[in-house]
């Protein structure tokens, strides 16, 4: 297998941009990534585009607008993990020799309000059983009952991620918030309050992968692994299916992490920086447990000990996470890759994690899908 390098990254800020089309958002991110990789038409042999709400031929529209069409172009939908899935496909193409350079991008303009998802049958919507934050709430309640995670710990996660996001010019929310404000914010679905939930929004991210390093300080993709849930493990990923079981089966995140660690030849102790899925504050803690950043059931103590904060042994979500950036589904996973590339190059500015050499990105979402990517400087 050949090595896979990140040779260019680009972002369009995450937020609300009523005057920009979805295609326009994607064009910005793609242009930035291609400029950094110093390639244009003819410089890549395949393109993979992550999007959930984009509709027909989302990626083709961006490449057409940029005069870059002609290469095999695949639109990838895997819920919150769409961008990670696109990256995994492109990475495998390069590693196998199917192509030398691939463009990966993700873009989204989320409708406002509670996420509407064709994942749910119409009757589930009509019966009120398609309330996405309510599923997050059930998972959070379960986490709190089966461990010592408290409402104050959920608030602390929001406070920490918002503090990190202050230094991220691409984030939607850049103001620090206090724990009191989080605990006093509107109750959306007990135990989750408004400031414990990320906002669906808009944005785009792009990454160029190549079999050879480019001009930018080299960053290697050591692993890019996608997994879906096993039968019976569904509620843990907040997505109902036919029936529920409480098997001790591993979650998609645990499965993807296990394979990614083995493929990359690293473990949690070798990581210097992590970007993980924090759709809500409880998801942040559960993600940390599933990735082995703290013991299973130890997420509450991890948070109370400052786990994941800047200056701690292993900073988590230095970008501010989804809680600060908001979540444009198709772009969010690649936004993590862009952040990690900057971190591993030492180019993250005021939010730089000192001496970051190995980074991990994690997304999980509807399907249920999880993607884990491990990157290394050099």
């Amino acid at each position, binding site marked *: 297998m050949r090595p896979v390098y990140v040779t260019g990254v680009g972002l369009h800020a995450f937020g609300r941009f009523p005057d920009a089309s979805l295609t326009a958002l994607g064009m910005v991110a793609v242009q930035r990534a291609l400029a950094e990789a110093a390639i244009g038409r003819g410089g890549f042999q395949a393109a993979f585009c992550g999007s959930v709400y984009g509709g027909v031929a989302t990626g083709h529209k961006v490449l057409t607008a940029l005069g870059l069409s002609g290469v095999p172009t695949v639109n990838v939908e895997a819920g919150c993990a769409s961008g990670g899935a696109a990256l995994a496909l492109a990475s495998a193409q390069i590693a196998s020799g199917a192509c030398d350079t691939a463009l990966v991008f993700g873009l989204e303009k989320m409708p406002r309000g509670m996420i509407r998802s064709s994942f749910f049958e119409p009757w589930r919507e*009509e019966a009120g*059983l398609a309330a*996405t934050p309510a599923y997050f709430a*059930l998972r959070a309640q*379960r986490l709190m009952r089966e461990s010592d995670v408290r409402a104050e710990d959920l608030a602390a996660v929001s406070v920490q991620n918002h503090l990190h996001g202050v230094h991220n010019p691409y984030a939607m929310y850049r103001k620090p918030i206090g724990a009191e404000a989080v605990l006093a914010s509107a109750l959306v679905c007990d135990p989750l309050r408004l400031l414990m939930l990320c906002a669906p929004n808009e944005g785009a991210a792009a990454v160029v992968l190549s079999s050879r390093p480019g001009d930018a300080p080299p960053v290697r993709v050591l692993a890019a692994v996608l997994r879906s849930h096993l039968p*019976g493990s569904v*509620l843990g990923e907040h997505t109902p299916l*036919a*029936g529920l079981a409480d098997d001790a089966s591993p979650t998609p995140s645990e499965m993807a992490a296990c394979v990614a660690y083995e493929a990359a030849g690293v473990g949690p102790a070798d990581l210097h920086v992590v970007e993980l899925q924090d759709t809500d504050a409880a998801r942040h803690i559960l993600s940390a447990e599933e990735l082995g950043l703290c013991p299973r059931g130890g997420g509450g103590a991890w948070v109370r000990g400052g786990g994941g904060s800047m200056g701690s042994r292993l900073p988590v979500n230095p970008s501010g996470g989804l809680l600060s950036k908001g979540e444009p589904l198709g772009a969010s996973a690649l936004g993590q890759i862009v952040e990690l590339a900057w971190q591993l190059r030492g180019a993250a500015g005021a939010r730089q994690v000192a001496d970051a050499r190995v980074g991990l990105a994690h997304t999980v979402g509807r399907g249920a899908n999880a993607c884990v990517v491990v990157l290394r400087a050099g």
Partner: protein
Amino acid sequence: MSDARPVAPDLFVAASDGARLLAGRCRSCARHHFPASPVCPYCGADGAAAEPVGPTGRLWLWTVVTTRPPGYRGTLPYGFGVVELDRIGLRVVTRLTETRLGHLHAGQPMRLVVETLCADDDGTPVEAWAFAPEGEA
């Protein structure tokens, strides 16, 4: 007022002693699933048969929905959670009739009911199943 319609067919039935859910039971692995499907979602075996289950269970997880989710025309707030059915252990994502958080607790005995969700434009009531705290059904 026309006759009520269920929110979807083959989810629940009325019985003389209360409502029942229609769950699938796998002939191969013997596990129940809901809603019923001829194919077992756990082992993939075909030929599962639908059978009435319930009407009692224990509350496993719960919350209250206060903001209108997409496609929902019913009243707000409403209870939402997971109830584990007695004997067979099947866990069902469900509406809850109780909307006061302080009146719900883990392991609480619950009973299946059929309630009116909303009405169609022609006045036809739309019915769904829900679970109510035992003694309040």
